[in-house]
């Protein structure tokens, strides 16, 4: 998993973006709200003035705004909302949407056909499979039930008997949303439970036999487990006959030698986890030891993406967004280092040792000894004083999380003296900060890392809770889609409302591509251009990086039209919820990382914002619409 810069933001940072308010979610919310109000008033005025004449139209708009605050919001009753929600729920049940759970079960039953049993990381495979399946099933379902219900009621005229009761438009909208969200919740809970069972049961295994057991000269034993589920483990036991196997496919087993000389292998350990990382800030030093913001780019590390975090400021052309960060590299042999400074390194958080996880990349500028990995070292260092430990060497394990433990007592240098250092006393400053220096030891080979590549791991959370959080994230997405579906269904017919909602979801998913196209148009880089230009290129079979090969006038027309389309799409995509970011929480769970509370809180607040917006739009359209027309 590769975390982006904005993933590290706390809720406060995300909401206000101190120092860059233009990028903040708060501003985006305000702009959306203002835009919604202004557009609403204008559209409302146009409609009602065409209906009643220009003067009376003004009063009509004013009246409907006043009605919301004077009558409809105060007059909204929980009992009515719940009654309508219950109805929506029953209606959804009647549409047999609960069959989706059955469909999910079938998917799980057939999962063996397409989940590769020889995978290197089965936990990741299983978790991302169940989460992705749930996510798309539930979103499709939300889309379907929310956008068809209201138009159907208008078509069947069942709504006549409802709106002629003292039911407020607020209640109709809220009742629907609530009913469908309740439906989705009822579906998500069994899906979540089934997923949990599927993953835990699917990964559970043990090794019945051991082989090649040898007694070690130093006391204890070593040996191999049998080959079960396409893998076996190597294990070493201490004098007492206790020990663990090595990590294979993300898990290990406890092995115990019983008194009668037989060995017993315990259940899977460590396959399902939720690491709670403590990330540090990262700076690089080049080969001469000068500080650098970024590491060396060994090529193709700057991929498109990551614009979404820049919010409004990118839309109005002030900022470009963080861009996606990939690995920065440290050169071996020279003075090149990557320095992570961690805070909160205290005795209370870490017990007998400091767990540190490394997921580094290696880049070979020459072949070297291809059998052996690139070597690196970690040094613990005081953030400001010249105190540092001796380097701890390691060999890079690419594409795996390499778990290490830093000792609390280590030999090192304090100024010019060489002495035993205590980590908490000598290497941590008064603010609880400590620096880890990562070096590459092989000359002219490179180690790549991002701010998320090296982190301390004070605790783990339970996998069940992490899976629950992933499901909460799906729940939030479902709520958002439901709100949009209900909103569109207040003024569109069922199928059209569904398509409109689906377009919103798809545009939300492909927002980054739209931003990217816009970026290339702005920067004048030839990357195929907008939709019309792409079409022309396709028809002419031109490569996308060449100059557009048509005459100048045509090119100008095409580019202008394209710019118009792309800018419009950009504005719409910016206004829509950032769904890929929300779907990405599945990646956290699959990679075994705890889903940050801040991330979930951000999603929750964004969802709430969009739900309120959809609610207001729905209210006004429903209120101003002739139900019997």
């Amino acid at each position, binding site marked *: 998993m590769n975390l982006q810069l904005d993933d590290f933001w706390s809720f406060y940072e995300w909401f206000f973006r101190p120092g860059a308010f233009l990028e903040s979610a708060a501003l985006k919310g305000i702009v959306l709200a203002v835009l919604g109000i202004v557009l609403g008033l204008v559209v409302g005025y146009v409609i009602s003035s*065409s*209906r009643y004449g220009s*003067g*009376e139209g003004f*009063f009509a708009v004013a*009246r409907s705004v006043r009605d919301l605050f004077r*009558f*409809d919001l105060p*007059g909204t*009753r929980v*009992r*009515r909302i*719940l*009654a*309508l929600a*219950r*109805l929506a729920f*029953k*209606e959804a049940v*009647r549409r047999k949407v609960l069959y989706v759970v059955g469909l999910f079960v079938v998917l799980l039953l057939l999962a063996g056909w397409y989940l590769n049993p020889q995978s290197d990381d089965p936990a990741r495979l299983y978790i991302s499979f169940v989460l992705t399946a749930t996510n798309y099933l539930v979103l499709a379902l939300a889309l379907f039930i929310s956008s068809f219900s209201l138009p159907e009621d208008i078509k*069947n*005229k*069942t*709504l*006549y*008997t*409802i*709106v*002629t*009761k*003292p*039911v*407020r438009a607020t209640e109709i909208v809220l009742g629907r949303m609530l009913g469908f969200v309740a439906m989705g919740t009822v579906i998500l809970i069994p899906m979540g439970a089934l997923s949990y069972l599927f993953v835990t049961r699917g990964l559970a295994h043990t090794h019945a036999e051991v082989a090649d057991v040898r007694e070690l000269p130093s006391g204890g034993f070593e040996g191999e487990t049998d080959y079960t589920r396409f893998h076996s483990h190597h294990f070493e036991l201490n004098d007492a006959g206790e020990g663990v196997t090595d990590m294979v496919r993300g898990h290990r087993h406890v092995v115990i030698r019983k008194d009668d000389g037989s060995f017993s292998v315990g259940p899977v350990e460590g396959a399902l986890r939720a690491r709670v990382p403590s990330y540090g800030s990262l700076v690089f030093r080049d080969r001469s030891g000068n500080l650098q913001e970024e590491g060396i780019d060994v090529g193709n590390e700057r991929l498109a993406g990551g614009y979404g975090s820049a919010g409004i400021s990118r839309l109005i052309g002030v900022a470009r967004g963080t861009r996606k960060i990939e690995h920065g590299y440290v050169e071996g042999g020279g003075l090149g280092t990557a320095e992570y400074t961690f805070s909160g390194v205290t005795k209370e958080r870490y017990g007998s040792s400091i767990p540190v996880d490394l997921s580094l990349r290696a880049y070979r500028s020459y072949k070297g000894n291809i059998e052996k990995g690139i070597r690196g070292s970690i040094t613990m260092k005081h953030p400001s004083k010249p105190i540092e430990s001796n380097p701890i060497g390691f060999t890079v394990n690419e594409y795996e999380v390499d778990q290490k433990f830093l000792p609390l007592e280590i030999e090192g240098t304090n100024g010019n003296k060489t002495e035993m250092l205590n980590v908490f006393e000598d290497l941590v400053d008064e603010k609880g900060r400590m620096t880890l220096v990562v070096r590459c030891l092989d000359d002219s080979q490179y180690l790549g890392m991002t701010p998320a590549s090296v982190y301390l791991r004070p605790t783990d959370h339970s996998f069940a809770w992490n899976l629950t959080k992933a499901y909460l994230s799906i729940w939030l997405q479902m709520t958002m889609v439901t709100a949009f579906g209900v909103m569109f269904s207040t003024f569109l017919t069922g199928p059209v409302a569904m398509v409109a909602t689906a377009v919103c979801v798809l545009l939300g998913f492909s927002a980054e591509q739209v931003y990217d196209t816009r970026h290339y148009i702005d920067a004048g880089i030839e990357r195929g251009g907008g939709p019309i230009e792409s079409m022309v290129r396709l028809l002419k079979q031109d490569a996308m990086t060449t100059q557009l090969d048509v005459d100048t006038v045509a090119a100008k027309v095409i580019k202008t039209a394209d710019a118009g389309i792309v800018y419009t799409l950009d504005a719409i995509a910016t206004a829509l919820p950032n769904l890929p970011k929300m779907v990405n929480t599945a990646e956290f769970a699959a990679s075994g990382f705890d889903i940050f509370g801040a991330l979930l809180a951000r999603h929750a607040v964004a969802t709430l914002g969009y739900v309120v917006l959809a609610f207001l739009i729905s209210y006004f359209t429903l209120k101003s619409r*002739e*139900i*019997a*027309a």
Partner: protein
Amino acid sequence: MDTDNSTAVAETSEDTSPTTAKSSDSVVIETRNLSKIYRDFWGRKKVHALKSLDIEVKPGEIFGLLGPNGSGKSTTIKLILGLLFPTSGRVLVFDQDASETQKNERIGYLPEESYLYKFLTAEETLDFYGRLFDLSAAERKNRVKQLIEMVGLQGAKHRQLKEYSKGMTRRVGLAQALINDPDLVLLDEPTTGLDPIGTREMKDLILGLRDRGKTVLLCSHQLADVQDVCDRVAILHQGELKELGRVSDLLKVQDVTEVHATGLSDAAKSEIAEVIARHGGTVESIDNPTATMEDLFLNIVRESEARPGARRVSQATESKNSSNGSTSDGDQA
């Protein structure tokens, strides 16, 4: 008229607060110059459904809107309910604009067809609509029981509405319209699709509502219904009001006198004819009155319920009745 109208709008929009006094109900429904034009998507005029309708419905009366299909009856009712917005003019219900939700507290509405949720049972349906009036659980239970008894659906209250016959659905529809014990009941074609017994029961219910002090507005094209129950009618044709007044006044034939008597011999009849002639009147006919088909049918059903299995033996000529009986059944149904 225009300026007049806009000031009226401003005034009433000010006093449409929820506390609108109940005492000021000298008029329950008032339409002022009410017009409705249906337009297509592009705003082009399609139908002029209602032209400058001015009617007033007084408390405690049964008011009938009468007219052929497409005359604007349903449009009027929908405008009164706020399901449609007037193109010009306005509707006041209990002195509030028709677009106010507040007025619905005191209104019961039976739509043209009972647009109910087919997957609910009768009891669930009524409970649901009770909730929409924010009635407490105890109150709802009470009222639901009462209404189910009133419309005679005790035996079927746990069945889903999709299994109901048209008449039963209609009754649930009526029951839901009365769930809030409304002061004003709007009935859109209350007797369509009902058999003669159902029609009679519906009419009795409507009269019962009036007896309990409710105001009823109904629209129908079944003239007999309107004649039987309405106090006043408005006759619409092509969106225009053609006639408005008390049913008894409208139907009274001023220069004809009707005498009903029993036990008269033929001699007595001719004597009466002489008396009339002496007073300068003209006898148009002296005859036995014929009952309406409705009366005949209801009598048959009533007797068959009293003595199941037996065929009705009329006191009148038997042969005539038996040949008529079968056809009349077919006609009425």
